[in-house]
């Protein structure tokens, strides 16, 4: 078995293989430059028809809460901010590879994005868009593991199904690392905002988060809620034990959860996603 350090090296070098369209890597680099204005970044994205169409489709979907209202990339940028855009671009760009990695993983991810947004609103978290994007990319590590180690990850998927186990546990048994770690390595390597890196890293163990405890707690609960609804598939259908600290931190009442479920139901099923 490879060591965790070896696996980390191989996952971090994912940026070098053509998993992501070059335009995305270019935009991510551009976002990191301090001498570039938000408008310049917007213009750059707008030049790429395919990418901007996907971004607009995403922000206009019910997942983000403002269906049909955002018509330009610059308007989207103002609403969601650069750091969040980065996560969203990644989510949008890995859409294809996500679908190849695991049937249902994309739906699981956008469902978690919707759940995280709604939870954040209820829990009074200001960074609603950040929560949404954290939900969108929380299982990024499954893509990383699936791309880097198709045989081993395939074994995790297969055994999770046959033995009715959590895929998280099998990743650790079979590969020695989990998708939470793998995803956070990639997110850090790609210079995602630290809050997002933490949310990905600790979505299964939110109490270990340092700076992004609330965000990690939000994604942790979002992951549980979306599994309850049976929308999409993230490797196993089982809700994890919800962390007590995370639960307390969000301070949601039973009525809040009821409202969240209703709104989530709307977001995932009450839609005609594309005309």
């Amino acid at each position: 078995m490879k060591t965790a350090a070896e696996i980390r090296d191989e996952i971090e070098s994912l940026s070098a293989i053509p998993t992501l369209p070059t335009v995305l890597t270019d935009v991510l680099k551009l976002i990191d430059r301090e001498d570039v204005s938000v408008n310049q970044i917007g213009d750059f994205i707008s030049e790429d028809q395919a990418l901007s169409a996907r971004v607009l489709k995403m922000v206009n979907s019910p997942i983000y809460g403002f269906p049909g209202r955002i018509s330009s990339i610059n308007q989207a940028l103002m609403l969601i901010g650069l750091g969040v855009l980065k996560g969203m671009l990644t989510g949008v760009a890995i859409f294809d590879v996500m679908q190849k990695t695991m049937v249902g993983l994309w739906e699981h991810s956008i469902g978690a994005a919707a759940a995280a947004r709604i939870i954040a609103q209820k829990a009074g978290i200001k960074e609603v868009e950040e929560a949404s994007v954290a939900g969108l990319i929380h299982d990024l590590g499954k893509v990383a593991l699936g791309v880097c180690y198709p045989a081993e990850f395939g074994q995790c998927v297969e055994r999770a199904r046959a033995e009715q186990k959590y895929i998280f546990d099998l990743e650790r048994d079979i590969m020695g690392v989990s998708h939470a770690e793998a995803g956070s390595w990639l997110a850090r390597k790609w210079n995602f905002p630290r809050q997002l890196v933490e949310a990905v890293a600790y979505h299964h163990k939110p109490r270990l988060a340092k700076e992004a405890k609330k965000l990690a707690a939000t994604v942790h609960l979002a992951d549980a809620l979306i599994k309850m609804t049976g929308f999409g598939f993230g490797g196993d259908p089982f809700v994890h034990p919800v962390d007590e600290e995370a639960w307390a931190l969000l301070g949601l009442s039973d009525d809040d959860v009821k409202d969240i479920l209703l709104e989530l139901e709307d977001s995932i099923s009450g839609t005609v996603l594309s005309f």
Partner: protein
Amino acid sequence: MKLARPVENESGIALYGAGMELTPAIIERLKAMGTEAVFIEGAIEYRFPKKADYLAVVETAFSKTGGKAINANLRKIMKAHVEAIYGSR
């Protein structure tokens, strides 16, 4: 097929109200406006035709953790939620 929520323009003004029937002509108009998605009424039926199917999903989801306090509570709320959305029709 009816709208479950209003469709608003960029300034937040409602163009089509909730309950509006989505005719092919209106769908065309929405498309022309660049709208990608709308909320529709009763769409839950497209995910799970029967309440029992949805409840079975919930049972599976909680099959490992239903005994833990927070999860037991979530399961209870979730089951009431499923009962409520199917019960209303």
